[in-house]
Protein backbone atom coordinates (compact mmCIF):
# COMPACT_ATOMS: atom_id res chain seq x y z
CA UNK A 1 0.00 0.00 0.00
CA UNK A 2 1.62 3.25 -1.09
CA UNK A 3 1.78 6.25 1.19
CA UNK A 4 -0.55 8.94 -0.17
CA UNK A 5 0.95 11.64 2.04
CA UNK A 6 4.42 11.30 0.59
CA UNK A 7 5.19 13.89 -2.10
CA UNK A 8 7.52 13.17 -4.98
CA UNK A 9 10.19 15.66 -5.93
CA UNK A 10 9.55 18.05 -8.77
CA UNK A 11 12.16 20.35 -10.25
CA UNK A 12 11.22 23.84 -11.37
CA UNK A 13 12.19 24.14 -15.04
CA UNK A 14 10.91 27.63 -15.66
CA UNK A 15 9.06 30.48 -13.98
CA UNK A 16 6.96 32.67 -16.28
CA UNK A 17 5.72 36.02 -15.03
CA UNK A 18 2.11 36.32 -16.17
CA UNK A 19 1.13 39.40 -14.16
CA UNK A 20 2.74 41.26 -11.26
CA UNK A 21 1.11 38.76 -8.86
CA UNK A 22 0.67 35.64 -10.97
CA UNK A 23 3.38 33.29 -12.20
CA UNK A 24 3.37 30.05 -14.12
CA UNK A 25 5.72 27.44 -12.71
CA UNK A 26 6.84 24.75 -15.13
CA UNK A 27 7.61 21.60 -13.15
CA UNK A 28 9.25 18.31 -13.97
CA UNK A 29 8.19 15.67 -11.40
CA UNK A 30 10.50 12.72 -10.83
CA UNK A 31 7.64 10.47 -11.87
CA UNK A 32 4.74 11.25 -14.14
CA UNK A 33 1.63 12.73 -12.52
CA UNK A 34 -1.22 11.30 -14.63
CA UNK A 35 -3.65 14.20 -14.24
CA UNK A 36 -6.66 15.02 -16.36
CA UNK A 37 -8.01 18.53 -16.94
CA UNK A 38 -9.84 19.68 -13.82
CA UNK A 39 -7.99 17.47 -11.37
CA UNK A 40 -5.67 19.09 -8.85
CA UNK A 41 -2.43 18.27 -7.09
CA UNK A 42 -1.02 19.16 -3.68
CA UNK A 43 2.13 21.20 -4.13
CA UNK A 44 4.65 21.21 -1.31
CA UNK A 45 6.81 24.23 -0.77
CA UNK A 46 9.50 22.61 1.39
CA UNK A 47 9.58 24.16 4.82
CA UNK A 48 6.28 25.97 4.36
CA UNK A 49 3.65 23.29 3.78
CA UNK A 50 1.46 22.36 0.90
CA UNK A 51 -1.47 23.81 -0.98
CA UNK A 52 -3.80 22.59 -3.72
CA UNK A 53 -3.37 23.81 -7.30
CA UNK A 54 -4.87 22.69 -10.56
CA UNK A 55 -2.42 22.21 -13.42
CA UNK A 56 -2.91 24.70 -16.22
CA UNK A 57 -1.11 22.69 -18.88
CA UNK A 58 -2.44 20.09 -21.28
CA UNK A 59 -3.03 16.65 -19.86
CA UNK A 60 -1.74 15.32 -23.17
CA UNK A 61 1.74 16.47 -22.09
CA UNK A 62 2.34 14.92 -18.71
CA UNK A 63 6.11 14.83 -18.54
CA UNK A 64 5.92 18.41 -17.24
CA UNK A 65 3.17 20.25 -15.42
CA UNK A 66 2.46 23.92 -15.41
CA UNK A 67 0.83 25.64 -12.48
CA UNK A 68 -0.34 29.20 -12.72
CA UNK A 69 -0.41 30.59 -9.22
CA UNK A 70 -1.36 33.87 -7.61
CA UNK A 71 0.61 35.15 -4.65
CA UNK A 72 -1.93 35.42 -1.83
CA UNK A 73 -0.39 34.16 1.39
CA UNK A 74 2.52 32.63 3.25
CA UNK A 75 2.95 29.48 1.16
CA UNK A 76 2.51 31.17 -2.20
CA UNK A 77 4.77 33.98 -0.98
CA UNK A 78 7.46 31.37 -0.34
CA UNK A 79 6.78 29.80 -3.71
CA UNK A 80 7.40 33.14 -5.39
CA UNK A 81 10.97 33.12 -4.06
CA UNK A 82 11.67 29.90 -5.99
CA UNK A 83 13.61 29.87 -9.21
CA UNK A 84 14.47 27.36 -11.95
CA UNK A 85 16.42 24.41 -10.54
CA UNK A 86 14.76 24.55 -7.10
CA UNK A 87 12.86 21.52 -5.84
CA UNK A 88 9.25 21.30 -4.78
CA UNK A 89 7.12 18.34 -3.69
CA UNK A 90 4.03 17.16 -5.46
CA UNK A 91 1.37 14.53 -4.83
CA UNK A 92 -1.76 13.64 -6.71
CA UNK A 93 -3.63 13.91 -8.96
CA UNK A 94 -6.80 14.25 -6.91
CA UNK A 95 -10.46 14.85 -7.56
CA UNK A 96 -12.60 14.34 -10.57
CA UNK A 97 -11.69 15.78 -13.97
CA UNK A 98 -14.00 17.57 -16.36
CA UNK A 99 -16.21 14.85 -17.84
CA UNK A 100 -14.96 15.32 -21.40
CA UNK A 101 -16.91 12.32 -22.65
CA UNK A 102 -20.12 14.16 -21.76
CA UNK A 103 -18.86 17.27 -23.56
CA UNK A 104 -18.49 15.48 -26.89
CA UNK A 105 -20.63 16.83 -29.72
CA UNK A 106 -21.64 19.89 -27.71
CA UNK A 107 -20.67 23.53 -27.80
CA UNK A 108 -18.63 24.54 -24.78
CA UNK A 109 -19.12 27.91 -23.17
CA UNK A 110 -16.24 28.71 -20.84
CA UNK A 111 -16.25 31.64 -18.42
CA UNK A 112 -13.15 32.51 -16.45
CA UNK A 113 -12.16 35.21 -14.01
CA UNK A 114 -8.65 36.27 -12.99
CA UNK A 115 -6.33 33.40 -12.13
CA UNK A 116 -9.37 31.10 -12.56
CA UNK A 117 -8.33 30.86 -16.18
CA UNK A 118 -5.55 28.47 -15.09
CA UNK A 119 -7.66 25.28 -14.72
CA UNK A 120 -9.68 26.40 -17.74
CA UNK A 121 -6.50 26.56 -19.78
CA UNK A 122 -5.93 22.87 -19.08
CA UNK A 123 -9.48 22.23 -20.25
CA UNK A 124 -9.11 24.47 -23.31
CA UNK A 125 -5.89 22.70 -24.35
CA UNK A 126 -7.52 19.29 -23.89
CA UNK A 127 -10.51 20.35 -25.99
CA UNK A 128 -8.47 21.85 -28.79
CA UNK A 129 -6.16 18.83 -28.85
CA UNK A 130 -9.13 16.74 -29.99
CA UNK A 131 -11.22 19.50 -31.46
CA UNK A 132 -13.18 17.32 -33.83
CA UNK A 133 -14.91 15.66 -30.90
CA UNK A 134 -16.49 18.88 -29.71
CA UNK A 135 -18.62 21.71 -31.09
CA UNK A 136 -17.63 25.34 -30.95
CA UNK A 137 -15.60 26.64 -28.02
CA UNK A 138 -16.50 29.99 -26.53
CA UNK A 139 -14.18 31.55 -23.98
CA UNK A 140 -15.26 34.57 -21.98
CA UNK A 141 -12.60 35.92 -19.69
CA UNK A 142 -12.46 38.88 -17.34
CA UNK A 143 -9.62 40.36 -15.34
CA UNK A 144 -9.33 43.40 -13.11
CA UNK A 145 -7.17 45.45 -15.42
CA UNK A 146 -5.36 44.77 -18.70
CA UNK A 147 -2.13 44.00 -16.86
CA UNK A 148 -3.93 41.36 -14.73
CA UNK A 149 -4.75 39.24 -17.78
CA UNK A 150 -2.93 35.92 -17.75
CA UNK A 151 -1.72 34.05 -20.86
CA UNK A 152 -1.74 37.21 -22.96
CA UNK A 153 0.25 35.67 -25.81
CA UNK A 154 -1.66 32.39 -25.80
CA UNK A 155 -5.02 34.18 -25.89
CA UNK A 156 -3.96 35.86 -29.11
CA UNK A 157 -2.95 32.51 -30.55
CA UNK A 158 -6.12 30.78 -29.41
CA UNK A 159 -8.27 33.42 -31.10
CA UNK A 160 -6.89 32.21 -34.44
CA UNK A 161 -8.13 28.65 -33.95
CA UNK A 162 -11.11 27.84 -36.14
CA UNK A 163 -14.27 27.26 -34.13
CA UNK A 164 -12.91 29.15 -31.15
CA UNK A 165 -14.55 32.41 -30.11
CA UNK A 166 -12.88 34.49 -27.41
CA UNK A 167 -14.05 37.68 -25.78
CA UNK A 168 -12.35 39.58 -23.00
CA UNK A 169 -13.23 42.25 -20.51
CA UNK A 170 -11.53 44.14 -17.71
CA UNK A 171 -13.16 45.68 -14.68
CA UNK A 172 -11.18 48.87 -15.20
CA UNK A 173 -9.06 49.93 -18.17
CA UNK A 174 -6.19 51.88 -16.63
CA UNK A 175 -4.22 51.66 -19.86
CA UNK A 176 -5.26 51.59 -23.55
CA UNK A 177 -7.79 48.80 -23.99
CA UNK A 178 -9.84 48.11 -27.10
CA UNK A 179 -12.23 45.52 -25.72
CA UNK A 180 -15.05 45.63 -23.21
CA UNK A 181 -14.87 47.25 -19.79
CA UNK A 182 -16.95 45.71 -17.02
CA UNK A 183 -17.18 42.55 -14.97
CA UNK A 184 -17.14 39.34 -16.98
CA UNK A 185 -20.93 39.05 -17.03
CA UNK A 186 -20.94 42.01 -19.43
CA UNK A 187 -19.70 39.52 -22.03
CA UNK A 188 -22.70 37.29 -21.46
CA UNK A 189 -25.59 39.41 -22.65
CA UNK A 190 -25.67 37.37 -25.82
CA UNK A 191 -24.78 33.71 -25.54
CA UNK A 192 -24.13 32.48 -29.08
CA UNK A 193 -24.78 28.80 -28.56
CA UNK A 194 -27.81 26.59 -28.09
CA UNK A 195 -27.88 26.61 -24.29
CA UNK A 196 -29.98 23.48 -24.03
CA UNK A 197 -27.41 21.47 -25.97
CA UNK A 198 -24.22 23.10 -24.70
CA UNK A 199 -22.20 22.89 -21.53
CA UNK A 200 -20.94 25.84 -19.51
CA UNK A 201 -17.73 25.71 -17.52
CA UNK A 202 -16.92 28.37 -14.93
CA UNK A 203 -13.88 29.08 -12.80
CA UNK A 204 -12.99 32.20 -10.93
CA UNK A 205 -13.49 34.03 -7.65
CA UNK A 206 -16.61 32.86 -5.76
CA UNK A 207 -18.48 36.14 -6.24
CA UNK A 208 -17.81 35.95 -9.97
CA UNK A 209 -19.01 32.33 -10.14
CA UNK A 210 -22.17 33.27 -8.27
CA UNK A 211 -23.19 35.94 -10.78
CA UNK A 212 -22.00 34.02 -13.83
CA UNK A 213 -24.08 31.03 -12.72
CA UNK A 214 -27.10 33.28 -12.26
CA UNK A 215 -26.62 34.60 -15.78
CA UNK A 216 -26.20 31.11 -17.23
CA UNK A 217 -29.38 29.89 -15.53
CA UNK A 218 -31.28 32.92 -16.81
CA UNK A 219 -30.00 32.16 -20.30
CA UNK A 220 -31.49 28.69 -19.99
CA UNK A 221 -28.51 26.42 -19.29
CA UNK A 222 -29.73 23.37 -17.36
CA UNK A 223 -28.19 23.16 -13.88
CA UNK A 224 -26.61 19.82 -14.73
CA UNK A 225 -24.75 21.39 -17.66
CA UNK A 226 -23.06 24.12 -15.62
CA UNK A 227 -19.69 22.91 -14.33
CA UNK A 228 -18.18 24.93 -11.51
CA UNK A 229 -14.72 24.72 -9.94
CA UNK A 230 -15.55 24.63 -6.24
CA UNK A 231 -12.02 24.84 -4.98
CA UNK A 232 -12.55 24.98 -1.24
CA UNK A 233 -9.98 24.42 1.48
CA UNK A 234 -8.73 21.15 0.04
CA UNK A 235 -6.11 19.74 2.34
CA UNK A 236 -5.45 16.00 2.35
CA UNK A 237 -6.79 15.52 -1.20
CA UNK A 238 -7.88 12.02 -0.23
CA UNK A 239 -11.46 12.64 0.89
CA UNK A 240 -10.51 11.94 4.49
CA UNK A 241 -9.51 14.97 6.54
CA UNK A 242 -12.90 16.70 6.33
CA UNK A 243 -11.66 20.24 5.69
CA UNK A 244 -13.19 20.73 2.25
CA UNK A 245 -16.66 19.55 3.24
CA UNK A 246 -19.26 21.26 1.06
CA UNK A 247 -22.69 19.97 2.07
CA UNK A 248 -22.61 16.21 1.48
CA UNK A 249 -19.45 16.44 -0.63
CA UNK A 250 -15.76 16.41 0.05
CA UNK A 251 -14.64 18.84 -2.62
CA UNK A 252 -11.28 17.11 -2.99
CA UNK A 253 -12.86 13.76 -3.75
CA UNK A 254 -16.28 14.54 -5.26
CA UNK A 255 -15.05 17.76 -6.93
CA UNK A 256 -13.42 20.14 -7.37
CA UNK A 257 -15.61 20.27 -10.49
CA UNK A 258 -19.25 20.04 -9.45
CA UNK A 259 -22.36 20.92 -11.39
CA UNK A 260 -24.83 23.54 -10.27
CA UNK A 261 -27.38 20.75 -10.03
CA UNK A 262 -25.22 19.07 -7.39
CA UNK A 263 -24.69 22.12 -5.21
CA UNK A 264 -27.79 24.24 -5.72
CA UNK A 265 -29.41 23.15 -2.45
CA UNK A 266 -26.38 23.95 -0.34
CA UNK A 267 -26.71 27.07 1.75
CA UNK A 268 -24.42 29.73 0.25
CA UNK A 269 -22.21 27.49 -1.90
CA UNK A 270 -20.28 30.54 -3.18
CA UNK A 271 -18.43 32.14 -0.30
Amino acid at each position, binding site marked *: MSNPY*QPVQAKILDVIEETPNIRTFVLKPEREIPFLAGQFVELTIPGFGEAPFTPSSSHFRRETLEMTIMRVGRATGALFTKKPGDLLGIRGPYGKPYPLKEFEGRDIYIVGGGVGLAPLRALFLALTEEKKKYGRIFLRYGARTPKDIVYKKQLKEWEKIKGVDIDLSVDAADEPWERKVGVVTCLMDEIPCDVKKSVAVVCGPPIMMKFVTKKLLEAGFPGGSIYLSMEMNMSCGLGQCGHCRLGPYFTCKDGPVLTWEQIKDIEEPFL
Partner: protein
Amino acid sequence: MDAYFLPNHRCSSWLASLAGRFNLFYPREVDEAVHWQRYDANDFNIEQLALRKIRAAEPIKPFFFSPRERVASFPEPVEPETKMKPTLLFGVKGCDLRGIAVHKRMFLEGEFADPFFAQRLNNTILLGADCPAPERTCFCNLLGLKPFLTEDVDLSLTVIDDGWLIEALSERGAELMQMENGLQKATDSQIAKREEQRQKAMRILKEQNPKDWNPNLAQAIADKTADKRFWIDAARDCVECFGCLLTCPTCFCFLLYDQGNAERFERSRVWDFCYLPMYARVGGGANPRARFIDRFINRFHCKFMHSKNQNGFYACSGCGRCFSTCMGRIDIRNILGQL
Protein backbone atom coordinates in the same frame (compact mmCIF):
# COMPACT_ATOMS: atom_id res chain seq x y z
CA MET B 1 -18.45 -20.97 17.13
CA ASP B 2 -18.84 -22.62 20.51
CA ALA B 3 -18.44 -20.76 23.76
CA TYR B 4 -15.82 -21.91 26.25
CA PHE B 5 -15.45 -21.35 29.94
CA LEU B 6 -12.29 -20.27 31.72
CA PRO B 7 -12.51 -20.56 35.51
CA ASN B 8 -11.48 -17.57 37.60
CA HIS B 9 -8.30 -19.15 38.92
CA ARG B 10 -6.87 -19.45 35.39
CA CYS B 11 -7.82 -16.01 34.06
CA SER B 12 -4.69 -14.23 35.28
CA SER B 13 -2.35 -16.75 33.73
CA TRP B 14 -4.17 -16.62 30.37
CA LEU B 15 -3.89 -12.84 30.40
CA ALA B 16 -0.20 -13.10 31.25
CA SER B 17 0.41 -15.52 28.41
CA LEU B 18 -1.39 -13.20 25.99
CA ALA B 19 0.69 -10.30 27.27
CA GLY B 20 3.79 -12.28 26.42
CA ARG B 21 2.78 -12.40 22.81
CA PHE B 22 1.11 -9.02 22.32
CA ASN B 23 1.27 -5.42 23.39
CA LEU B 24 -1.72 -5.95 25.60
CA PHE B 25 -3.92 -3.10 26.79
CA TYR B 26 -6.82 -3.50 29.18
CA PRO B 27 -9.43 -1.27 30.83
CA ARG B 28 -8.27 -0.51 34.36
CA GLU B 29 -10.25 1.11 37.11
CA VAL B 30 -8.41 4.09 38.54
CA ASP B 31 -10.12 6.36 41.06
CA GLU B 32 -13.59 5.22 39.99
CA ALA B 33 -12.89 5.88 36.34
CA VAL B 34 -11.83 3.38 33.69
CA HIS B 35 -8.82 4.02 31.51
CA TRP B 36 -6.89 1.96 28.98
CA GLN B 37 -3.64 0.73 30.47
CA ARG B 38 -0.72 -1.22 29.03
CA TYR B 39 -0.33 -4.57 30.78
CA ASP B 40 2.64 -4.72 33.10
CA ALA B 41 3.03 -7.96 35.04
CA ASN B 42 4.63 -6.06 37.94
CA ASP B 43 1.70 -3.71 38.21
CA PHE B 44 -1.29 -5.86 37.47
CA ASN B 45 -4.02 -7.12 39.68
CA ILE B 46 -6.95 -8.97 38.12
CA GLU B 47 -9.28 -7.00 40.42
CA GLN B 48 -8.38 -3.86 38.48
CA LEU B 49 -9.51 -5.37 35.18
CA ALA B 50 -12.71 -3.38 34.68
CA LEU B 51 -14.60 -5.71 32.35
CA ARG B 52 -17.92 -5.30 34.13
CA LYS B 53 -17.81 -1.51 33.78
CA ILE B 54 -18.86 0.48 30.73
CA ARG B 55 -16.32 1.67 28.14
CA ALA B 56 -13.15 3.48 29.21
CA ALA B 57 -13.16 7.25 29.47
CA GLU B 58 -11.11 7.47 26.28
CA PRO B 59 -12.08 5.78 23.02
CA ILE B 60 -9.92 3.13 21.36
CA LYS B 61 -9.47 5.48 18.39
CA PRO B 62 -5.86 6.45 19.24
CA PHE B 63 -4.73 2.85 18.89
CA PHE B 64 -5.44 3.06 15.14
CA PHE B 65 -5.59 6.77 14.33
CA SER B 66 -2.87 8.46 16.31
CA PRO B 67 -3.49 11.97 17.69
CA ARG B 68 -0.16 12.96 16.17
CA GLU B 69 1.75 10.95 13.64
CA ARG B 70 4.57 11.49 11.17
CA VAL B 71 3.15 10.53 7.78
CA ALA B 72 5.72 11.82 5.32
CA SER B 73 9.14 13.36 5.10
CA PHE B 74 11.27 14.93 2.45
CA PRO B 75 13.47 14.01 0.72
CA GLU B 76 13.60 10.53 2.34
CA PRO B 77 10.12 9.00 2.43
CA VAL B 78 8.31 7.64 5.48
CA GLU B 79 6.65 4.26 5.39
CA PRO B 80 4.47 2.64 8.07
CA GLU B 81 6.31 0.60 10.68
CA THR B 82 5.80 -3.04 9.74
CA LYS B 83 7.73 -4.81 12.47
CA MET B 84 5.61 -3.72 15.40
CA LYS B 85 4.63 -6.34 17.95
CA PRO B 86 0.91 -7.07 17.49
CA THR B 87 -1.45 -5.26 19.84
CA LEU B 88 -4.30 -6.89 21.73
CA LEU B 89 -7.08 -4.72 23.12
CA PHE B 90 -8.59 -6.77 25.89
CA GLY B 91 -12.13 -5.75 26.81
CA VAL B 92 -13.34 -3.56 23.96
CA LYS B 93 -17.00 -2.54 24.31
CA GLY B 94 -19.53 -2.65 21.51
CA CYS B 95 -19.90 1.12 21.30
CA ASP B 96 -16.24 1.58 20.41
CA LEU B 97 -16.60 -0.58 17.33
CA ARG B 98 -18.76 2.03 15.60
CA GLY B 99 -15.68 4.23 15.61
CA ILE B 100 -13.71 1.58 13.78
CA ALA B 101 -16.53 1.15 11.27
CA VAL B 102 -16.54 4.88 10.50
CA HIS B 103 -12.77 5.03 10.25
CA LYS B 104 -12.58 1.98 8.01
CA ARG B 105 -15.04 3.66 5.67
CA MET B 106 -13.10 6.92 5.71
CA PHE B 107 -9.52 5.67 5.67
CA LEU B 108 -9.62 2.37 3.84
CA GLU B 109 -12.57 2.22 1.50
CA GLY B 110 -11.98 5.24 -0.70
CA GLU B 111 -9.63 5.57 -3.64
CA PHE B 112 -6.67 6.21 -1.35
CA ALA B 113 -6.17 3.83 1.54
CA ASP B 114 -4.32 5.06 4.60
CA PRO B 115 -1.39 2.69 5.11
CA PHE B 116 -0.82 3.77 8.71
CA PHE B 117 -4.39 3.04 9.80
CA ALA B 118 -4.45 -0.20 7.80
CA GLN B 119 -1.22 -1.41 9.31
CA ARG B 120 -2.39 -0.78 12.87
CA LEU B 121 -5.81 -2.28 12.33
CA ASN B 122 -4.36 -5.43 10.79
CA ASN B 123 -1.87 -5.63 13.61
CA THR B 124 -4.49 -5.49 16.36
CA ILE B 125 -6.52 -8.26 17.94
CA LEU B 126 -9.81 -7.10 19.37
CA LEU B 127 -11.17 -8.94 22.35
CA GLY B 128 -14.65 -7.66 23.13
CA ALA B 129 -16.35 -7.75 26.50
CA ASP B 130 -20.02 -7.52 27.34
CA CYS B 131 -21.34 -4.40 29.02
CA PRO B 132 -23.43 -5.94 31.80
CA ALA B 133 -24.45 -2.68 33.46
CA PRO B 134 -24.96 0.24 31.07
CA GLU B 135 -24.87 3.62 32.79
CA ARG B 136 -27.11 6.65 32.39
CA THR B 137 -24.90 8.11 29.66
CA CYS B 138 -25.21 5.01 27.45
CA PHE B 139 -27.53 4.97 24.43
CA CYS B 140 -26.10 2.43 22.02
CA ASN B 141 -29.56 0.88 21.68
CA LEU B 142 -30.84 4.05 19.96
CA LEU B 143 -28.28 3.42 17.23
CA GLY B 144 -29.09 -0.21 16.70
CA LEU B 145 -25.99 -1.35 18.61
CA LYS B 146 -25.92 -3.84 21.44
CA PRO B 147 -24.09 -3.87 24.79
CA PHE B 148 -22.38 -7.12 23.83
CA LEU B 149 -20.46 -8.41 20.84
CA THR B 150 -21.39 -11.15 18.42
CA GLU B 151 -19.35 -9.93 15.43
CA ASP B 152 -16.55 -7.56 14.36
CA VAL B 153 -14.15 -8.67 17.11
CA ASP B 154 -11.79 -11.64 17.27
CA LEU B 155 -13.00 -12.85 20.62
CA SER B 156 -16.05 -12.13 22.70
CA LEU B 157 -15.90 -12.39 26.48
CA THR B 158 -18.60 -12.40 29.15
CA VAL B 159 -17.79 -12.28 32.84
CA ILE B 160 -19.98 -14.59 34.89
CA ASP B 161 -19.61 -15.27 38.60
CA ASP B 162 -17.09 -18.08 38.52
CA GLY B 163 -15.14 -17.27 35.38
CA TRP B 164 -15.21 -16.00 31.81
CA LEU B 165 -17.22 -17.26 28.87
CA ILE B 166 -15.13 -16.82 25.74
CA GLU B 167 -16.17 -17.25 22.14
CA ALA B 168 -13.96 -16.99 19.10
CA LEU B 169 -15.49 -14.86 16.36
CA SER B 170 -12.57 -15.03 13.94
CA GLU B 171 -9.77 -17.38 13.02
CA ARG B 172 -7.31 -15.14 14.85
CA GLY B 173 -9.50 -15.44 17.93
CA ALA B 174 -9.68 -19.21 17.63
CA GLU B 175 -5.86 -19.39 17.51
CA LEU B 176 -5.63 -17.44 20.76
CA MET B 177 -8.01 -19.81 22.49
CA GLN B 178 -5.73 -22.69 21.57
CA MET B 179 -3.01 -21.06 23.68
CA GLU B 180 -5.03 -21.82 26.81
CA ASN B 181 -5.51 -25.46 27.75
CA GLY B 182 -7.72 -24.67 30.76
CA LEU B 183 -10.75 -23.88 28.61
CA GLN B 184 -13.78 -26.06 29.02
CA LYS B 185 -16.75 -26.16 26.71
CA ALA B 186 -19.41 -23.89 28.22
CA THR B 187 -22.41 -25.61 29.75
CA ASP B 188 -26.00 -24.79 28.83
CA SER B 189 -26.44 -23.22 32.21
CA GLN B 190 -23.43 -20.93 31.73
CA ILE B 191 -24.69 -19.87 28.32
CA ALA B 192 -28.11 -19.22 29.82
CA LYS B 193 -26.46 -16.99 32.43
CA ARG B 194 -24.74 -15.05 29.66
CA GLU B 195 -28.03 -14.62 27.83
CA GLU B 196 -29.80 -13.50 30.98
CA GLN B 197 -27.07 -10.94 31.66
CA ARG B 198 -27.23 -9.64 28.10
CA GLN B 199 -30.99 -9.29 28.18
CA LYS B 200 -30.78 -7.44 31.47
CA ALA B 201 -28.34 -4.95 29.93
CA MET B 202 -30.71 -4.47 26.99
CA ARG B 203 -33.56 -3.83 29.43
CA ILE B 204 -31.54 -1.20 31.29
CA LEU B 205 -30.80 0.59 28.03
CA LYS B 206 -34.41 0.49 26.94
CA GLU B 207 -35.59 1.80 30.30
CA GLN B 208 -33.28 4.79 30.21
CA ASN B 209 -33.75 5.46 26.48
CA PRO B 210 -37.39 4.47 25.98
CA LYS B 211 -38.17 6.75 23.04
CA ASP B 212 -36.72 5.78 19.69
CA TRP B 213 -35.37 8.52 17.47
CA ASN B 214 -37.16 9.61 14.34
CA PRO B 215 -36.67 6.65 11.97
CA ASN B 216 -35.70 9.10 9.23
CA LEU B 217 -33.37 11.15 11.37
CA ALA B 218 -31.16 12.21 8.44
CA GLN B 219 -34.12 13.81 6.69
CA ALA B 220 -35.43 15.27 9.93
CA ILE B 221 -32.08 17.04 10.43
CA ALA B 222 -32.13 18.29 6.85
CA ASP B 223 -35.63 19.65 7.38
CA LYS B 224 -34.64 21.31 10.64
CA THR B 225 -31.44 22.91 9.35
CA ALA B 226 -32.99 26.27 8.51
CA ASP B 227 -34.61 26.54 11.95
CA LYS B 228 -31.68 28.38 13.50
CA ARG B 229 -33.67 29.11 16.67
CA PHE B 230 -33.84 25.37 17.39
CA TRP B 231 -30.07 24.96 17.04
CA ILE B 232 -29.26 28.12 18.99
CA ASP B 233 -31.37 26.76 21.86
CA ALA B 234 -29.67 23.36 21.57
CA ALA B 235 -26.20 24.91 21.66
CA ARG B 236 -26.97 27.49 24.35
CA ASP B 237 -24.87 25.85 27.06
CA CYS B 238 -21.90 25.03 24.83
CA VAL B 239 -18.69 26.71 25.98
CA GLU B 240 -16.79 25.53 22.90
CA CYS B 241 -14.35 23.36 24.85
CA PHE B 242 -14.46 20.74 22.04
CA GLY B 243 -14.47 17.93 24.61
CA CYS B 244 -17.27 16.19 22.72
CA LEU B 245 -15.14 16.03 19.59
CA LEU B 246 -11.95 15.08 21.39
CA THR B 247 -13.56 12.10 23.13
CA CYS B 248 -15.72 11.00 20.21
CA PRO B 249 -14.72 7.57 18.90
CA THR B 250 -15.98 8.32 15.39
CA CYS B 251 -14.57 11.82 14.67
CA PHE B 252 -11.97 11.53 11.92
CA CYS B 253 -10.97 15.07 10.94
CA PHE B 254 -7.28 15.77 10.77
CA LEU B 255 -4.81 18.43 9.80
CA LEU B 256 -1.59 17.97 7.89
CA TYR B 257 1.27 20.28 8.64
CA ASP B 258 4.92 20.41 7.72
CA GLN B 259 7.87 21.27 9.92
CA GLY B 260 11.43 21.76 8.74
CA ASN B 261 13.15 23.76 6.11
CA ALA B 262 13.64 23.80 2.37
CA GLU B 263 16.16 20.95 2.47
CA ARG B 264 14.40 18.59 4.86
CA PHE B 265 10.96 18.50 6.41
CA GLU B 266 8.53 16.20 8.13
CA ARG B 267 4.78 16.06 7.58
CA SER B 268 2.61 15.33 10.58
CA ARG B 269 -1.02 14.43 10.84
CA VAL B 270 -2.85 15.64 13.94
CA TRP B 271 -6.47 15.37 14.97
CA ASP B 272 -8.49 18.40 14.01
CA PHE B 273 -11.88 19.60 15.17
CA CYS B 274 -14.67 21.07 13.08
CA TYR B 275 -15.73 23.38 15.95
CA LEU B 276 -12.55 25.40 15.52
CA PRO B 277 -13.32 28.73 13.83
CA MET B 278 -10.40 28.37 11.42
CA TYR B 279 -11.19 24.77 10.53
CA ALA B 280 -13.17 25.41 7.34
CA ARG B 281 -11.56 28.66 6.30
CA VAL B 282 -10.71 28.58 2.62
CA GLY B 283 -7.99 30.21 0.56
CA GLY B 284 -8.61 33.95 0.40
CA GLY B 285 -10.04 34.01 3.92
CA ALA B 286 -13.71 33.18 3.36
CA ASN B 287 -15.27 30.79 5.87
CA PRO B 288 -18.42 28.77 5.20
CA ARG B 289 -18.95 28.24 8.92
CA ALA B 290 -17.68 31.42 10.48
CA ARG B 291 -20.48 31.42 13.11
CA PHE B 292 -20.35 28.85 15.87
CA ILE B 293 -23.97 27.86 15.36
CA ASP B 294 -23.15 26.77 11.81
CA ARG B 295 -20.29 24.66 13.11
CA PHE B 296 -22.59 23.15 15.74
CA ILE B 297 -25.15 22.24 13.07
CA ASN B 298 -22.36 20.87 10.87
CA ARG B 299 -21.51 18.31 13.56
CA PHE B 300 -25.05 16.95 13.39
CA HIS B 301 -24.99 17.00 9.61
CA CYS B 302 -21.74 15.07 9.56
CA LYS B 303 -22.66 12.41 12.10
CA PHE B 304 -26.35 11.92 11.58
CA MET B 305 -27.12 13.08 8.04
CA HIS B 306 -24.15 12.67 5.69
CA SER B 307 -22.86 9.50 7.34
CA LYS B 308 -26.27 7.88 7.31
CA ASN B 309 -26.95 8.89 3.71
CA GLN B 310 -23.51 7.89 2.45
CA ASN B 311 -22.50 4.98 4.68
CA GLY B 312 -25.82 3.61 5.83
CA PHE B 313 -25.06 4.15 9.50
CA TYR B 314 -24.72 7.05 11.91
CA ALA B 315 -21.26 8.26 12.85
CA CYS B 316 -22.20 7.93 16.49
CA SER B 317 -21.64 5.02 18.82
CA GLY B 318 -23.99 5.89 21.64
CA CYS B 319 -21.06 5.76 24.05
CA GLY B 320 -22.15 8.97 25.78
CA ARG B 321 -18.62 10.34 26.10
CA CYS B 322 -19.71 13.62 24.49
CA PHE B 323 -22.25 14.06 27.25
CA SER B 324 -19.96 12.80 30.01
CA THR B 325 -17.29 15.30 29.12
CA CYS B 326 -19.53 18.26 28.26
CA MET B 327 -19.11 21.25 30.56
CA GLY B 328 -22.49 22.53 29.43
CA ARG B 329 -24.10 19.11 30.09
CA ILE B 330 -25.47 18.99 26.53
CA ASP B 331 -27.00 15.58 25.97
CA ILE B 332 -27.39 14.97 22.24
CA ARG B 333 -30.19 12.53 22.97
CA ASN B 334 -32.33 15.49 23.99
CA ILE B 335 -31.56 17.33 20.75
CA LEU B 336 -32.05 14.36 18.45
CA GLY B 337 -35.09 13.21 20.38
CA GLN B 338 -36.90 16.43 19.45
CA LEU B 339 -36.52 15.83 15.72
